[in-house]
């Protein structure tokens, strides 16, 4: 069962530039939370806080609390945190290794030396809807795959270490519609087993895959709640406008 993540009073600034202001939201266990909003509203920054990738950015100040199953993530060992909260990036970033080595990278990094690497690879690739396409060529370089396949490989790679939460930063942004559909069906199939937080600028996609929706604008949380409620009966005018596909005044 996936873990629950809670964000309380999160504020992030890069130098003098405040990117996020006082965000409160929750990613319920085993459900999909979609974060939507216009470009530059801080969606990616919020996502990167959840696995403390913001630690790698200089001059980035993070205030507030984030909890994973009740534990404060800022007092955890970040390496251990990232073993429980995985990430798939916007642009596919396979390692310069074979497909099999890519999937097993995280497993080997965590030091788990069990003999059934074959089954781990198979189940991870099946979960990412990639197994049938690559089962005969696991030792080929990951770069021989198409962009959509590479992205699914990255998805498989993050699933192979059995995290509790998977973060996805606009995972279908570089993909064609067919690959996008395959990725979305994988996400829906993973519900329950993982908690998924997905940042997307594709509003219909958010409606298709998510259970909860957080609408960000200008660094602040406009509205947060169940997806269907936000689409049918939002509380704020801006939410209605944005989800209907209309541009918002900056």
């Amino acid at each position, binding site marked *: 069962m996936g873990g629950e993540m809670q964000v309380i009073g999160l504020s992030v600034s890069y130098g003098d530039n405040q990117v996020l202001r006082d965000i409160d939201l929750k990613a319920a266990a085993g459900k999909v939370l979609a974060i939507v909003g216009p470009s530059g509203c801080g969606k990616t920054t919020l996502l990167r806080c959840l*696995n403390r*990738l913001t630690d*790698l950015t200089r001059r980035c100040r993070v205030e507030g609390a984030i909890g994973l199953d009740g534990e404060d993530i800022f007092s955890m060992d970040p*390496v*251990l*945190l*990232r*073993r*429980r909260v*995985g*990430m798939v*990036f916007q*642009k596919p*970033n*396979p*390692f*310069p290794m074979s497909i099999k080595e890519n999937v097993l*990278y*995280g497993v*080997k*990094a*965590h030091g788990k030396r069990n003999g059934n690497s074959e089954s781990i690879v198979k189940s991870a690739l099946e979960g990412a809807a990639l197994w049938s396409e690559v089962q005969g060529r696991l030792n080929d*370089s*990951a*770069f021989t795959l198409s962009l959509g396949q590479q992205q699914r490989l*990255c998805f498989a*790679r*993050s699933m192979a*270490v059995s995290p509790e939460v998977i973060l996805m930063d606009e995972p279908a942004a570089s993909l064609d519609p067919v690959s996008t559909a395959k990725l979305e069906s994988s996400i829906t199939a993973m519900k329950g087993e993982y908690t998924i937080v997905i940042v997307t600028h594709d509003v219909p996609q958010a409606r298709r895959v998510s259970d909860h929706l957080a609408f960000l604008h200008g660094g602040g949380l406009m509205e947060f709640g169940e997806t269907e409620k936000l689409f049918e009966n939002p509380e704020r005018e801006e939410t209605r406008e944005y989800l209907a596909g209309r541009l918002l005044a900056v």
Partner: protein
Amino acid sequence: MKAAEATAGRQAAVPERAALTSRALPATAGVAAAGNIVLGCAALLDNSYDAFAVPALAGLALILLVWLAQARYSRGVWERELIILLAVCLAAGALLLAIPEYTYGHQINGIIHRSLFSSVFLLGVGVPALCFSIYHLLGATPSAHDVSRYPLIIVPIALALGAYGLLLARLIDDGVSGLSWHALTTAYKEELQPTGFVYDVGLRNHILGTFLLMGLTSLIALPAGFGAGMYVAENEGWLSRLIAFCTTMLRAISVFVLGVAAFSLVDFAEGYAVGNPISDFIRGYYTDASGFKHPAEGSFLLAAVFLSLLAIPVIARATEEGFRSVPVDIREGSVALGATEGHGFLRILLPWAMPSVITGLLIGAAEVAGSVAVILFIAGSGQNGFGLFNQTTSLSYLIFDVKYGPQPVQDLLAQYQFTAALLLVFLTLTLTIAALFIKHRFARRYQGAQ
């Protein structure tokens, strides 16, 4: 109707003729310009071609003049570039007529034949003229402009390659005669016999010396350079900047200064007796037939330490570039999977940077093989044996030794001067090709299809 058709027909005929003449003149000019270029190259090689320089320039000037007139007649304008070319051509010819066949004095330490000037002028006039001609031959379109600039690139490259080729040919010609199994396996030795001095003549110790210097230097420079480069690439802060500054400044030290510094250390070590570690490490020693240890004038160890100061910046820069070239998203991908920095370093960063590091190492080794200034004052002919603590020597030092060394060396090893040079060129070439090969082959494997 008929009159209009007739006029149109006549107008169609006129462009035909204009096209022909507007092609013939650029073509002729191009040929003349090419001839000038070839003559210019020939004059570099043989003084006697100088006599044709002025006629060639005059011929080109004539063709340019005709072209200028034709352009004025058919298009009613004075072509500005043609005027400039013509003027330069005439000026060059006039200057050449004014220069005497031999120039001396004027604080020049030598005698210069006029063919030096004539080849410069011929090339300087011929190349632009050729570009211009090709441009008009191809129809004076924007694409023709790009294509017509090729002589500007090709001629200098051809000259440089030609010069290298001639040098190499001369080197092979002079050096091959000294290559023999005997020469390669015999070490130079002077032995005092009751009958007088007896000599063994060979390159063995010099060759081994070159390899030992390369190996020892790599042993010292690789960890230091790799560490420095890696630290600078992966960290920021005052220490990183300090290390980067130091490695750059190392490069700025003149090799001659390094050689003098090495020698002054030897001078300092002369205050210590042979057998004392300070003397042994710095000066080196050799044991004679009766078992006595004598001090030498600079050991291989000392030479390697100073040569590594040459190689460290090369390796450090290559390492830094290698690590900096790892894309950010691959690094983040590793971190996001919960891998420790150490694991990411060993499995991703290091393999990615390795081709650059190895390339840097091989280039550095090639530099070390050829360097002589650093060991200038501390090297010998290897006649007292070969080993870590023996006096340093190398092929590059031999080339210097034959001219400025002691008399026996000058007489006996003179035949191997070009052979040593040839061996060095061969060694450096092999190292450089190996470096390129590794970079190409492993870059594809470890750096993906980027």
